[in-house]
Structure formats: structure tokens, C-alpha cells
């Protein structure tokens, strides 16, 4: 089938130095303008000017209705690719053919004005994103319903909470109907329930036959939304294929980086007025950070949190998902002695450790989502964060794992090494 997006040999060069102005001064510019008013006056590059290739020879094609994830480390060129695709900046070389209307969401609420009311901002933001007024009128009620801000429609958005603001902004964006939607990590905002709503909306967009290009650091989200992913590194496409494979490569290369997540500032850490998550770490039995785990090796999950207010019986817990978003297992502190044995007047920092035994999880990539809750209150979740750390389980196939001497594919998200026994029950010819 004919692709809807054809990216051919795209490259983008930035000149380093004074904001890209490549050492050109106003005086030079005025002089140049006077000499050749219609000449090719575009910044004569400073001879010794350093340049940076943010993208180099990027090629790929996207079929209509395809959802593709773009991943890569910081500085790999993801944002530049999005900016070129959404025509915010021009490529230095190459071409992109687009066979449909593109709308890009590089941030939520572009052009929202704090002084204007919710209603006014819906129209303004819609127009900025390329919607017609008639189109906005038609979808207005739907947008308002989706954003759940009916009551504050005529309040200036500067009085909105950040959650309301985000909901309204996403609601407008979600009701665009482009053939091609380019999205950058906008889902990394809002509370869990709203994020889920956004993710579902995004998936619907994909199912309506629209084409989605989605950039994110959230690997499970990529896998859930996009069957295909491409990975950028140093401005080039280094992987292009099924999302679970490409995200596996990504997590493999970031194994170390992913094995620890620390919130330096309490105020910015996930949680409420009672509990704040401060760190989640993956370690081996000796306490060393671990991202790449031998299937036979135990793995310690460490959840560190601050208790700001006394009076709660708290437990830490986590969920372990594989790279396809399937939950392998969940675990929490639920034993009676942990719950009733803790000092209820404690405030300060606490670390909860849990050891995942070796020979439990299958080969693959897993992420850990952690939470701290009071299970006697309902349970009531005080702090929670999804996909905080990730690790990759590999099997060196030395014969003493669950796969024994077998080297082919093995089904399942867990792979316990179970005991087998077989004994003869009938000897000789077996009669029918």
C-alpha cells in the first residue's frame, strides 16, 4: 500500500554558538542588506562555526492507519524529528512527503492564555491547532464533557488548577481530526485516571484509521499504543521494527540508567501530604545497581519513601509488568506483623525491600510501578508512580535455568524452574 508519510534522507544541522545566529552581527546584517537587498542573505555561516547534526539521513515510511512510536535517549534527535515533521523548523536536506493533514501536539495547551476563560481558550487553541470555527462549534459540547470542567467554563484559566488546565487542553487536542497526529510525551501529565482516558483516546484515534506518530520515554505506553517503533541514536534511525523488540533494545542500552529513580525534591515527588516516594532502586543481592538480570539471579526492589505525617499503617508495594504491558505479578507488604507491628507515630524516611527470587520471571523486559498505601483504609493510595524503573532478564542458557538445555522460544511471562518427575508405569508394548 502507498505510505501516508515518506521520509527521505532528512538531515538537520544546527549551528552552535550564539543561539544559532552563527556569529552574524546586526551590523553585518544591515551592511549585507544594503549591498544586496534581494540577495541570498541567509546567514553566511561563520567559517569556524561549529555545527551539530541533530538528524542525519533519516529514512522511513509510515502506512496509513499505522501507529508508530519514536524512542531514543535525550539528544538522539526525537524532538528535532517531530519539529521537522510538524513543519516548525525546516530540514537542512532531504524531503518528507505528507499525504494527509498533520496536527502536532508538542505540548498540551499551546497558546492558552491565562487571562481568557475556558470557553475562549477552547476557540483560540482550536484555531491555533488548525481547526475551523464551525468545527469547534460542532464539537464544543463534546470537548467540554471530555474535559470535565463545565462549571468553570467562564472562569479565566489562570484560576484553574493544573489538573483542570491540562484536562481542558488535552480535550481540545483530542477532538482534532487530522489524518496524521504527531504527539510528544503529552501524556506525561495529569492524574492516573486522566492519563488512562488520554491513552484510550489516543488508541481510538489509531483505530479510526488515523496515523499516529508518538514520541515517549514511557516504554509500556509505546508498546500499548504502537505496534511499530523506531529508535533514534545520534540523529540516525538505528532500529525500526515491532515495538516490543525496539523498546527491548532501548531498555537494554539504558539498563543502568533505568535501575534507579530518585526524586531529589520532596515537593516534586509523587505522593500526598502523608507520603512522598523518594526513590525506587533495583539491586543485586550484594546491593549493587542492577539493570540486566541473569534469569537465575535474585533481584532486590527497594522502595524509599518519606512519611510526613504519623498515624497511618503504611505498606509499600509494586507491580511488575512486561514490555507488552502484561502484569507478571504484584506484591505488597500485607503480613499482619508488618501492618500491626509498625510504629504508628513514625515520621521520617523508610525503605522497604523485596527480593524477587531467581528463576521466577521469563526472559524479557520488565518495568516496576510502585505505590505506598494504607491497606486498612480501603485501601487508600498515598503515593504511586507507574513504570519507575525497568530491567531486562536474560538467560545465558548454561543448562541450569528453567530452559535447561533447550534453546528455542519459551511461552509465558514467568518461568519458574519447576521440579519434574517421570517414572515408568507400564513396561513393554502398550496395548490399545
Amino acid at each position, binding site marked *: 500500500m502507498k505510505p501516508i508519510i515518506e521520509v527521505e534522507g532528512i538531515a538537520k544541522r544546527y549551528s552552535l554558538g550564539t543561539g544559532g545566529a552563527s556569529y552574524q552581527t546586526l551590523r553585518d546584517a544591515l551592511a549585507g542588506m544594503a549591498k544586496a537587498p534581494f540577495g541570498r542573505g541567509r546567514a553566511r555561516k561563520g567559517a569556524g562555526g561549529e555545527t551539530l547534526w541533530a538528524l542525519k539521513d533519516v529514512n522511513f515510511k509510515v502506512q496509513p492507519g499505522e501507529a508508530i512510536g519514536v524512542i531514543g535517549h535525550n539528544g538522539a534527535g526525537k524532538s528535532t524529528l517531530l*519539529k521537522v515533521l510538524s513543519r516548525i523548523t525546516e530540514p537542512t536536506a532531504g524531503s518528507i512527503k505528507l499525504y494527509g493533514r498533520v496536527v502536532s501536539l508538542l505540548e498540551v495547551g499551546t497558546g492558552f492564555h491565562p*487571562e481568557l476563560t475556558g470557553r475562549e481558550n477552547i476557540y483560540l487553541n482550536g484555531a491555533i491547532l488548525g481547526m475551523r470555527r464551525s468545527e469547534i462549534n460542532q464539537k464544543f459540547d463534546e470537548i467540554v464533557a471530555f474535559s470535565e470542567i463545565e462549571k468553570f467554563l467562564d472562569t479565566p484559566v489562570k484560576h484553574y488548577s493544573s489538573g483542570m488546565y491540562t484536562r481542558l487542553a488535552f480535550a481540545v487536542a483530542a477532538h482534532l481530526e487530522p489524518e496524521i497526529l504527531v504527539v510528544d510525551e503529552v501524556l506525561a501529565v495529569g492524574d492516573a485516571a486522566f492519563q488512562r482516558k488520554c491513552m484510550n483516546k489516543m488508541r481510538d484515534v489509531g483505530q479510526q484509521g488515523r496515523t499516529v506518530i508518538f514520541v515517549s520515554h514511557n516504554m509500556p505506553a509505546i508498546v500499548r499504543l504502537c505496534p511499530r517503533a523506531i529508535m533514534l541514536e545520534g540523529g540516525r534511525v538505528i532500529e525500526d521494527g515491532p515495538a516490543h523488540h525496539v523498546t527491548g533494545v532501548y531498555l537494554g542500552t539504558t539498563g543502568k540508567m533505568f535501575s534507579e529513580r530518585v526524586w531529589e525534591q520532596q515537593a516534586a515527588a509523587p505522593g500526598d501530604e502523608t507520603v512522598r516516594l523518594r526513590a525506587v532502586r533495583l539491586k543485586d543481592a550484594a546491593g549493587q545497581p542492577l539493570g540486566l538480570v541473569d534469569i537465575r539471579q535474585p533481584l532486590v526492589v527497594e522502595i524509599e519513601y518519606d512519611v510526613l505525617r504519623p498515624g497511618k499503617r503504611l505498606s509499600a508495594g509494586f*507491580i511488575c509488568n512486561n514490555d507488552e504491558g502484561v502484569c507478571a505479578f504484584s506484591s505488597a507488604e500485607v503480613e499482619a506483623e508488618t501492618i500491626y507491628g509498625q510504629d504508628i507515630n513514625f515520621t521520617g524516611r523508610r525503605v522497604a525491600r523485596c527480593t524477587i527470587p531467581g528463576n521466577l520471571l521469563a526472559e524479557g523486559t520488565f518495568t516496576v510501578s510502585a505505590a505506598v498505601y494504607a491497606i486498612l483504609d480501603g485501601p487508600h493510595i498515598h503515593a504511586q508512580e507507574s513504570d519507575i524503573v525497568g530491567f531486562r532478564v536474560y538467560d545465558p542458557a548454561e543448562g541450569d535455568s528453567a530452559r535447561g538445555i533447550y534453546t528455542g522460544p519459551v511461552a509465558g511471562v514467568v518461568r519458574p524452574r519447576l521440579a519434574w518427575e517421570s517414572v515408568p508405569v507400564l513396561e513393554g508394548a502398550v496395548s490399545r
Partner: protein
Amino acid sequence: MSETIANERAGLSPPTPPNAPRPTLPDEPLVVIRPSKSWVAINLRDLWAYRELLYFLAWRDIKVRYKQTALGLLWVVMQPLLLTLIFTVFLGRLARVPSDGIPYPLFIFVGLLPWTFFSNAVSNSGTSLVGNSHLITKVYFPRLIVPAAAVLARLMDFLVAFTILIGMLAFYGVAPTPNLLLLPVMALLTTAMALGFGLLIAALNVRYRDVGVVLPVLLQLWMFVSPILYPTSLVPESWRGLYVLNPVVGVIDGFRASILGHPFNWGALAITALATVFLLIYSTYTFRRYEKDFADVI
């Protein structure tokens, strides 16, 4: 407890293959993105597609400017009125600046009205791109719309302030003459000229913020070399050839002529018209040339 999180995840099943009918693709690409050539024509189709954004940005400008002001839109009239008052007292009464036989307050108000529009439009559109950098770096639309919307917003102000002039004309008993038919032409010329300067300054200001800094000073000076506070007839005959090279002279005199019924200064008007056409072409070209790095440089 962990079930709560687990249930939330359950809502996110893996993607299913799309079963909706796929849109049929056009044979030719809608858009081809590639490095642009040095001469870039204005993409009129693109501008037309985004015409509503022009209106919305102008509307936002006006709305935001007068939000949380007690007098609101009244300020549009207050600015030229207060200036008229001050100048009438100091220049009209004390310094006795001549005004071609027209009551000084009326004379100066007719001049201040288009000048206020022009200078506000130029300074507004000149700084509009930098002021909207959050839009420029996050979303695509024809960048020309931003300075154009700033001029449009000031044109609206001008039209509102114009109602005061009608009252003043009635007060001084000035009857309309056939010259009034050329008033829309004067307004159009002023708008086009403001847009021309605005585009050029906006584009330059993205790269060299110096432009935005000196702009208010230049506009102040400009006012004094234009016939706002005094009539052109005050300028010595021998200097007048040079004086009318200032394109603002043509429109200000044009406004006075069409509203107060004086003979038009056709020579000055021709210079203004010619300069405006040239300026618009040149600044559009410059704007388009600079446009492609706006997002990288801003």
C-alpha cells in the same frame, strides 16, 4: 490495594488492528517538506486556510489587553484624547503653533488618530513574533499571521477611536466634503504601511533583539518629523521636497485633507503609495527568508 493500580491498567489493552475504513490517499502529497529555495513566494493557499487564526489572534490581542482594566475599551479613546488635550494646552495655546486655520484640538486629533494607529501597529507587530515565541516553537502555521493579527487588532482600536472624531467634527461644525470618499483609501494605505514596517521589524527582531529596544525611540523621533503636531506648511518650502520622502507625511496630510476638506497633496500621496508597495514586497520577501529559522533562533 495493588488491584486498584492493576484495574487501571486493565483499561489499556494492547492495540487491536484498525478495522475502520482507511482514508483514501490523494495522489499528490498535500505537503512536501524540504529545504526551501532562496526565493520563497507567499503560500497564499496556506494563508487562506489559516484565515480564522488571523481573526482569533487579533481578537485575543484586544481581549487580553483590556481584561482587568477598569475602563476597558475606553482606553482606546483616552490615549489620543489625553494627548490632544496636552498638546492643545502647550502647543496650541502657549506656543501658538499654527494649524492651517483649523481649531487646534481638531487639527491635532485628526493627525494623532492615524499616527497612534500607525505607531501602535508597528510596535505591536514588530514585537509580536518574539512575544508569541511559545507558539512559534510548538506549532506550525504561516508565521505572517502573527504580525498581521497585531496590525488588525490595532485597526480595530482605530475604528473605535474614530467614533470620537465624528462627535468632534459635529462639535466644531465641520461638514463632510467629497474628499471624504478617499478616507478608506487613507486607512488602507496606513494599514498597508504599518504591516510593511511591522513584518520587517518582526522578522529582524527575532534575530536581533536590538531592533525591539530601539523601536520606541525611533517611533518617538518619527512622530516629530511627521506633520502630527504642526502642519506641513510650517516646513520651509526648500525643505519640503526632502520632507515628503517620509511616507507618513502623505497619509497624515491625506487624512486631514479627506476629513477637513483641504486639497490633497498628490505628490506626497504618490510617494507614500509607491513606498508602501515597495516596502510590502520587500518586507514580505525578507520575512519569508527569515521565517524558516524562526523556531531555531527565537
